[in-house]
């Protein structure tokens, strides 16, 4: 198992480097100079030159990359072009809402999706159709529209949850923190839930038809134990893996929902920086988001390896 984790880490590191390079060179594609873009149309050439110099943009691209990477490895992603604030500080401050939302939603969809998929596969018939219909409906509702609906019903009409904003888990306590996250989590989870439930249904259907089910029965293991111990474990492996694949789309949803629920997260930070042409923050943001994806996938790899010994040798 330790060797497996080490091997996965060994793959994750070059992956991160490449993603870092992508996020750096992406900005190099800007037609013209970022400095000009920041300063707008009215800037004189002189002003642009000065800004370029102070940002180090006058140096060769590769040495810029080397410098940026060197700093990034020390946790320094430079300063925001517009506010002058340290990019890593800005990102660190906004990471909590984003991660809370993404991770809670992922866990929720995983658990509920497994339950729904299992019910559909095991019981079949009407339960199966019900799960399929709700799953399809969930997948068809755009999360931003669902978010607006939830705000309308639960925040404006029923006043059950706050419509917008965020409460710190550390300073405000768990109650306010959760109540600010309930609606965003539901809005975010609906689409993924359908997908995970479908995957789980397929995975359970497959696991239920495996020969070991018959072997276990033949040795006298009761039905429930076969289902909850053996079938559940086998079926959850592909489902957990798919959760890893859909996580990148979950993050996309987080960006959208942060905007609606005005959560002070990385998504909103990115959106603001995109509007302000704040390249250094955008660059750092892409890196941060990718880091999250890579870490989450690492966790998922380890989880599947813990569930299924065959994954460990791969």
């Amino acid at each position: 198992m330790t060797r497996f984790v080490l091997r996965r880490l060994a793959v994750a590191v070059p992956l991160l480097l490449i993603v870092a390079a992508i996020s750096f060179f992406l900005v190099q594609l800007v037609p013209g100079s970022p400095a000009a873009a920041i300063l707008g149309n009215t800037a004189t050439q002189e002003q642009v030159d000065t800004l370029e110099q102070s940002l180090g943009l006058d140096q060769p691209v590769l040495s810029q990359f080397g410098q940026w990477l060197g700093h990034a490895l020390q946790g320094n992603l430079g300063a925001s072009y517009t506010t002058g604030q340290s990019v890593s500080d800005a990102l660190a401050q906004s990471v909590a809402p984003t991660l809370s939302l993404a991770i809670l939603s992922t866990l929720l969809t995983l658990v509920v999706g497994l339950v729904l998929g299992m019910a559909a596969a095991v019981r079949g018939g009407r339960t199966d159709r019900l799960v399929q219909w709700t799953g399809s409906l969930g997948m068809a509702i755009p999360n931003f529209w669902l978010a607006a609906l939830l705000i309308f019903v639960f925040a404006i009409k029923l006043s059950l949850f706050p419509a917008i904003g965020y409460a710190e888990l550390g300073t405000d306590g768990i109650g306010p923190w959760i109540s600010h996250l309930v609606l965003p989590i539901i809005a975010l989870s609906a689409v993924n839930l359908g997908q995970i439930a479908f995957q789980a249904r397929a995975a359970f259907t497959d696991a239920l038809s495996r020969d070991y089910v018959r072997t276990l029965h033949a040795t006298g293991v009761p039905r429930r134990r076969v289902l909850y111990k053996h079938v559940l474990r086998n079926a959850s492996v592909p489902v957990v893996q798919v959760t890893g694949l859909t996580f990148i789309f979950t993050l996309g949803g987080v960006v959208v929902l942060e905007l609606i629920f005005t959560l002070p997260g990385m998504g909103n930070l990115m959106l603001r920086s995109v509007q302000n042409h704040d390249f250094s923050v955008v660059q750092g943001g892409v890196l941060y988001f990718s880091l999250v994806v890579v870490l989450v996938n690492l966790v998922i790899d380890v989880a599947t390896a813990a569930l299924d010994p065959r994954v460990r040798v791969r």
Partner: protein
Amino acid sequence: MTTATVPAHGTQGVGEPLAQPGRPRPRGSFATAIRDALHRPAILIALGWVVLVVVSSVLAGVLAPHDPLAQDLDNRLAGPSATYWLGTDELGRDLLSRILHGGGVLLLAALIPVVVAYLLGVPIGMFVGYVGGRADALADFVVNVLFAIPALVVVLAVSVVTDNNLPFMTVVFGVIVSGGIFRLVRASTQASRDLLYVDAARVSGVSRWTILLRHILPNVLGPLIVQGFLLYSGAFLFLTSLSFLGLGFDPQQPSWGQLVFDASAHLDDDPWLMVPIGLVLIATVAALNYLGNSLLATLPTARRARLLTPPRRPVLPPEAAAGTVPEGRRTPAAAEPADTDVPLVVEDLVVSFRTPEGGWQPVVDGVSFAVHRGETLCLVGESGCGKTMTALATLGLLPEGGAAAGSVRLAGRELLDLSEREMAQVRGSQIALISQEPMGALDPCFSVRSQLGDVVKLHRGGSRAEVRRRVHELLRLVGIPNAESVAKSFPHQLSGGMAQRVCIALALAGEPSVLVADEPTTALDPTIQAEILDLLRSLQETLGLALVLVTHDLGVVADIGDVAAVMYAGQVVELAPVDELLAAPRHPYSQGLLDAMPEDAVRGVPLPTVAGMVPLPKDWPGWCRFAARCPLAVDACREGPVPLLAVQADRTSRCIRTDELARSQELATTGVTP
């Protein structure tokens, strides 16, 4: 030689109630399935909606009652009216016109990622899947990178870099999602590459690209179309998100995501704004998804039966329980019900499966036999004769959709009347099963110790140390000397022979008196087969088990069997002591099996060399079921069902011409060979 192609038709399993996995599907069935799908109302509605959306978006300029940008400041946030059918927004602009105008660009732009993903994924996937090796590893790494890229965030970055250039953003999105298409194509290519006909084509010197295009592409086409459809619907949703965020689309022109954004600003004073655009969006995505998923359902998937026992055991209705053999034509098994020397008695067993039409199709039709202590009864026959279903029915482990009637008595107790819970207590402790595929028969997620320990604990309890000791004892009992290390292994670390030994240990853990073995050696190497058979024989002797062994291999029967029940088309056609059967079969089918067996009876060599095929259950005739293949068939054989007839004290045969058969055998042995 021209390119040899192996026909993909007619390879469907004989007598299997459900499709077998991994069989190539007849070509053209995808198109047929689509044609069928077009007759379903839900599909037509979904398709109709998509067409409506596309057409009205194209004709928005003509259809829209108002200019989508024209402001009517006196009628701000007005509800639906005769002038403004769906009401107006915060600037008094007509909602209907804005919706009509707001979908076109989205629907069009969502095509770009799909096209990009195809252009990248298909050729690269085919190439890499075909050549394999380094190219494969490299491409796989690139795809891993793509899968680590948060699409929306990168597209955000692209939007700032390209100054909100929508085509560029969609292309980038297409590149990011192309990994899915790539993997699909690569996997199918790898699979097709190994198929016989591609090999044949390769040998005959057809160029690589010709092979790829002509042979592999058609196989991938179905899944590819489905995937493209789902991708399109995903891209559409993605782009509406962008439009909602105010990115990529001209802020002056209406677009659907942006309409939701505008509406969300008026949740408290005009929630109506949300409704029309929401319904349009949901209906469109739902229709696209539904079409995609229906397409997906047309693809052939290996649907296998569930093996989990239902909470309540299904019961055959009386009319199905009788099977097809008329009353009074059956032969009862010759044993007293409570005879302890005869632990297993099966009488008039009928196994039927639910047909798609709602009826019942028998696959086992009135089978009777009895097994004595310390005796091995072999159920012999080609596949599709009902041997396995007979064996599984004795344990109450028929696959989903199957049900049994008749009588299965274990030590005098009627098993078919037991509830699932009672049956679970009988299984393992009184009757156990060894199945065909040892590798699949063990749960891959648990170690041997854990699986075996569970069963030991279930049957006799005990402390951890005791269970552990018993596990090792069992493993040694089945001839595994290094029990400690095997106990620690996981199923995938075991060889086939080793796994089968573990399965036997599992079966013995509850100390049953009857062991049912379903082709226990078929999946193994010939040398290992002999070892497993020896093991079974010695276990049977030391433990005094009654063994029911299902096999298609007369070599195995000769080796280990005491009594043989030859099965054909769901019935026992001959029941005889093994040595007598081998010396002088009294049924033409047994004779055929014997003739097909090579002289020096090599075990493991299959015997389907009797000309013709076992009829499918639905084609069983109302007379002798073997007549179509029988060299001795006469008109009398086709007059009605043939009962099991006694030929000797301990032998029965379902044939009216056993004397003829005996005579021909005599002729053959007296040496008058032509």
